[in-house]
């Protein structure tokens, strides 16, 4: 029952949602489309908590970012990367099928959210599955705020690791003020003339120049990636108050 301000008046209760579809995004990332009994609006960047219960009563919880924009009503997508020694993500990848029921509560989150009314220029920096909450922002922008100048810098190990590849390509080709750059940290495609290294100060300064100014920056990815990118952005001259971060822990499952 969250309102559009992202606040949750009253208790956040657990709901049982039904898995409506499963999309394979990459060799280790899948998107689960969930239909909750009552759909609550949210701000792009927010997440849901998922709770699993074993027959002996043991429970475990994890948080997953919402991938869809709030304009996609009634359902919401959670894009989940399989962490090999994890507990919840392997359950999703190896066990969950269409029609299964999943306990969830949310939406949750405040500082790491963006809506069109907050304007730009908007810089989004993603490392691996850190693209998920930023994709919600990009989809929301495409629905309601195409005037906002935006740059997505997306770091992946290789082309095969790029999540939402076709949709991102289509968004970038629309030519409506969205610029995009990939960087590949392990192997770049043949003939690739773009970035092929970890995100660093030089790369972010470059992006900063191409965007011209930064109203808001959102960085999401693994711990070390976010630390490096956020420090580099501050070194490149961006005011820390404009930078929002979300970090997946080393065992963020």
């Amino acid at each position, binding site marked *: 029952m969250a309102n559009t301000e992202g606040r949750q008046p009253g208790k956040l209760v657990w709901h049982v949602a039904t898995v409506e579809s499963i999309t394979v995004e990459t060799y280790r990332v899948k998107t689960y489309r969930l239909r909750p009994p009552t759909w609550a609006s949210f701000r792009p960047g927010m997440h849901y908590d998922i709770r699993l219960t074993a027959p002996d009563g043991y429970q475990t919880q994890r*948080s997953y970012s919402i991938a869809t924009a709030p304009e996609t009503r009634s359902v919401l997508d959670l894009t989940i990367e399989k962490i090999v020694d994890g507990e919840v993500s392997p*359950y999703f990848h190896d066990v969950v099928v269409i029609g299964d029921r999943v306990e969830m509560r949310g939406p949750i989150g405040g*500082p790491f959210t963006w809506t069109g009314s907050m304007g730009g220029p908007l810089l989004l920096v993603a490392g691996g599955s850190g693209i998920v909450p930023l994709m919600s922002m990009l989809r929301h922008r495409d629905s309601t705020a195409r005037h906002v100048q935006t740059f997505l810098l997306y770091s992946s190990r290789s082309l095969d690791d790029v999540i939402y590849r076709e949709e991102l390509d289509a968004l970038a080709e629309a030519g409506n003020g969205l610029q995009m750059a990939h960087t590949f940290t392990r192997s770049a495609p043949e003939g690739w003339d773009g970035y092929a290294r970890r995100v660093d100060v030089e790369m972010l300064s470059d992006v900063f120049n191409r965007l011209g100014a930064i109203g808001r920056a959102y960085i999401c990815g693994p711990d070390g990636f976010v630390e490096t990118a956020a420090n580099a952005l*501050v070194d490149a001259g961006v005011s*820390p*108050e404009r930078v929002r971060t979300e970090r997946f822990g080393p*065992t963020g499952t």
Partner: protein
Amino acid sequence: MLSRGFFGVRRPKPPRDIPPGQYYETGFPVLTYGPTERVSTADWKFTIDLGEDGSKSWNWDELLAMPQTDIHTDIHCVTKWSMLDSDWKGVDLDVFFEQAGVDPSEDYLMVRSFGGYTTNLPVSDVRDGKAFIVHEFDGEPIAPEHGGPVRMIVPHLYFWKSAKWVESIRFMDQDAPGFWESNGYHMYGDPWREQRYWGD
């Protein structure tokens, strides 16, 4: 509700019970809503606002000259990880109160960090050895991303109540939300009662 086909992996098994909904983490993840704050020991200063009586501050050297306490404790983060048996070194907040000559009549306080982060606490939750101003983690200076050079720890509450880059404390007659508490997170945050969000 039972999750079909879920039996629980429980990797690695925690040496003792952890709060509901938490998992045992052997690393030390970083959670901050913005870039790591850069505070040098030369610039660091901790202030208790004494209202009409002004304020009392301590710098880095003064902190190190105070009676030091070794704290061996478990940490529970609202993002579900629990870190067990962590070792910290610093000064009991009671000692600051004593040196400031303050016995607050107010029931609440707001902790503020360099960079502007805030979090609220009942005064009774930072007295009698329950809260510390720390400068060492596992025998080393605290890394900036973990709140160094100096952070607060209030181990019995969710870890967002343990302000990184701690800068000051001010007392309040009535409870008021800090940063996360304004963003849907619980005003008190007891992990054993799973007080994660508003209404929990």
